[in-house]
């Protein structure tokens, strides 16, 4: 009789993946999660021996950027996820079946695996026009989200649109777009993997975390995994030393820019943005936006299209700005100041909101640090 996991091992061998390479992958995952040494064996055991869980991926008011990001995954690759780790039974962008055959696949999962499958949502959910701003197979996104997310073991919102509404919800939110947490309140387990798009590394790590432990990672107040959103971009930025020394890019292409100095004055939102871009990079750690020469736009934060714009206006001034300022003060001033710093733009849009609704909308608060308070 075969040993446990031998099917999986044979598959790996068939693909030319050595045992050594596989264990290297498991070890990399353990390091990413900050786990003790013994965890490598635990991850390997989970991947080899547990039955493949089912995942369905819903696309709503989206651009498929999160799907494309998933296809760029490297640890593990999209092919490894699809063929070896998880059974992706519904995903409109990659699935072979179409029309009613595709709908039947989704229906079958919801009916037969109630409470046992993972739902991934990409894109926001419109509430305007009675749901007609986004329909699939004649059903509205809202109807599908209620049915599919409501019966799932857990829902993973990928990208800022599914997490917080994203660009369709940017002022004046023409379609009444909402993120999953607002559109389908009361989902028992919801993980937000915000960013525009989600970094593939954070998506695959979340899935491997689940496969390993049978539970989901610890989350911040915005339901984002602490392992990926626990620290600010600024805290880990490779250009931080230039910030501390008061060395700033003043013009695109100047000597300081070519030298990789701080992009703060060019509008970088790294100090008020929380994500692990500086640590894990993008596209198999090839680069990330600040390394490439452009400031952070804060794409993992709620309402960043309204609160982080104009993208090229620098964050509000604060005491000691220019020479080694205390980043906690940056955070503090950002907390009270982002909206007023972008007053012209914000007031225009606030004005539109007030005119539009006749309601007593107050300006909403700027992004808050989310690493305080730990897991919920």
């Amino acid at each position: 009789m075969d040993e446990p996991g031998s099917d999986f091992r044979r598959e790996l061998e068939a693909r030319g993946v050595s045992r050594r390479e596989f264990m290297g992958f498991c070890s990399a995952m353990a390091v990413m999660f900050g786990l003790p040494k013994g965890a490598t064996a635990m991850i390997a055991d989970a991947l080899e021996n547990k039955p493949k869980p089912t995942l369905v991926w819903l696309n709503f008011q989206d651009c498929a950027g999160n799907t494309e990001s998933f296809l760029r995954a490297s640890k593990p690759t999209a092919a490894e996820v699809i063929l070896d780790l998880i059974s992706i039974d519904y995903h409109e962008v990659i699935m072979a079946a179409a029309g009613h055959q595709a709908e039947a696949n989704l229906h079958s999962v919801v009916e037969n695996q109630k409470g046992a499958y993972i739902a991934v949502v990409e894109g926001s959910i419109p509430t305007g026009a009675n749901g007609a701003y986004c329909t699939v197979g004649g059903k509205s996104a809202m109807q599908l989200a209620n049915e599919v997310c409501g019966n799932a073991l857990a829902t993973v919102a990928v990208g800022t649109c599914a997490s917080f509404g994203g660009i369709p919800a940017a002022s004046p939110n023409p379609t009444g777009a909402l993120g999953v947490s607002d559109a389908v309140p009361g989902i028992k387990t919801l993980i937000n993997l915000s960013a525009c798009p989600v970094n593939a590394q954070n998506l695959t790590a979340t899935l491997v975390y689940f496969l390993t432990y049978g539970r989901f990672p610890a989350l911040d107040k915005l339901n984002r995994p602490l392992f990926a959103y626990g620290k600010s971009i600024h805290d880990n930025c490779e250009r931080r030393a230039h910030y501390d020394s008061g060395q700033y890019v003043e013009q695109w292409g100047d000597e300081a820019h070519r030298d990789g100095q701080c992009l703060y004055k060019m509008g970088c939102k790294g100090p008020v943005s929380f994500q692990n871009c500086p640590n894990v990079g993008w596209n198999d750690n090839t680069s990330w936006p600040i390394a490439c020469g452009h400031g952070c736009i804060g794409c993992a934060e709620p309402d960043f299209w309204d609160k982080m714009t104009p993208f090229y206006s620098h964050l509000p001034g604060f005491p000691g700005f220019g020479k080694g300022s205390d980043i906690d003060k940056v955070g503090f001033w950002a907390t009270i100041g982002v909206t007023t710093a972008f007053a012209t733009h914000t007031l225009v849009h606030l004005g539109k909101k007030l005119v539009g609704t006749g309601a007593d909308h107050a300006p909403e608060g700027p992004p808050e640090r989310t690493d305080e308070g730990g897991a919920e």
Partner: protein
Amino acid sequence: MTHIVVDPVTRIEGHLRIEAEINEGQVSDAWSSSTMFRGIEIILQGRDPRDAWAFTQRICGVCTTVHAIASIRAVEDAIGAKPPPNARILRNLIIASQCIQDHVIHFYHLHALDWVDIVSALSADPKETAALAQSISDWPKSSATYFKSIQDRVKGLVDRGQLGPFANAYWGHSAYKLPPAANLMAVAHYLEALEWQREFIKMHAILGGKNPHLQSFLVGGMATPVDPDKQASLNIHTIAQFKKLIAGAQEFVSKVYIPDLLAVASFYKDWAGYGAGVGNYMVYGEYPLDDEAKPDLYIKPGIIRARDISKVEEFDPSKITEQITHSWYDYAGGEEAALHPSEGETKPNYTGPQPPYERLDTSKKYSWLKSPRYEGVPMEVGPLSRMLVNYVRGHEQVQGLVNHVLKTLGVGPEALFSTLGRVAARGIETQLLVDKIGDWVDELADNMGKGELRIHDNSKWEPESWPADCMGAGFHEAPRGSLGHWVHVKNAKIERYQCVVPSTWNAGPRDSGDVPGPYEAALVGTPVADPEQPLEILRTIHSFDPCMACGVHVVEPGGREITRVKAR
């Protein structure tokens, strides 16, 4: 007569619904409907035009970059910014690598399963597959052992009963014609292409920090510094990285993609007789080769009408209009009005059935896409249009590649006006670009060597340097076709913003004269062996490479009131 609905059309970007009448085994009429709307142009009003590229780029994450490129060109045109030579070169590198990667993904991951039967691959003899692969290419991964391992891997999915994304498709359909050995080869290359695209697109990570949604665009230039002597700039190390990635792309395209395309096409030559569509082809042109006000373009613009390849007309952007007779919008000038994008208007007004619904009333409004027209007639845009126009205009490299493909398949140029023609043109364009892209790397390296390090026109960065009231247009050839953005900037804010995009041209509904759009026209006459399994409809629709999120846009002049629900 049978009425069928395909919704969702899968293996595309976005949300597309096709309704069709089937009469005596073929499509007699068809309607294309886009079922998603976001209103990004409304969201742009009142914002800083330098931010617009980041917003518009989010129109699509599959053809990421394309709306960013069109946007910065439109704003530059409006405010008079002049990007320096390095910015032009960096943009050409981004545009070409996007097109190459996107076309390969389309062929293998979005289109191949319409021609390739995965289940049939299980019965292949891997030795035969190896012999076939070795006969068409010297690509090294071609041993019987290798193909056996792929077969076992697919068999593993079947044995476990967990087919995942391959479940419940049209396997075994009578329209699949490839022998098992060829099916197995294609499945192996489907998986290899998945690995290859991930590697090649590191071009974008280097040039834009990340892919999808690169973050290095600037109105007036690019944000990636260039300096051969700096560690934090694009430098000689970057040049070496580009060369390696491009060499890998050349090898994959010429040894895997093109041989696969020719091999598959040789079994489906009858598809050179279906899917012609409207027969009018439009190209805006792309890849500026110099820094003049009207630069020479590597892919030339032009118009071909009624499949007449004896002549090409010049493209004139003033002849573009959009209609909304069958679209869920209102025009102040009435249902029959046709407006140029620079004065366009749109008010979304959904009048279709309430969800959940079974059927659309296609005699009325039935899509979130408008109907763009050129001098009142529908135009097809995309790789086929680009290759046809450049073939007729005497583009030496295009003629060489097109003639090679036609000769290999033993067909004449008329075969290009078809579903198969679209598939072939996409491959030809990919080969054209992998052969060309290295020139721009050399040009960048030369500039670095000469000390030409400028990446941005700083003189037009601050809004104080802009005219108080100005308008501009930006044109681009996206992988899926001709893309235009129009912007009106007033007092340093966006007054009006509009996009007319490839999938609107191709997938739009009927116009005021009830003339069908390219998808609708192309489907008529398509054979459908089994209305319950409309595989053939997918073939023709996928040959256009639909990108529906791109297609849906709305223009809203001057802050008019729109549906407003609680903003988060």
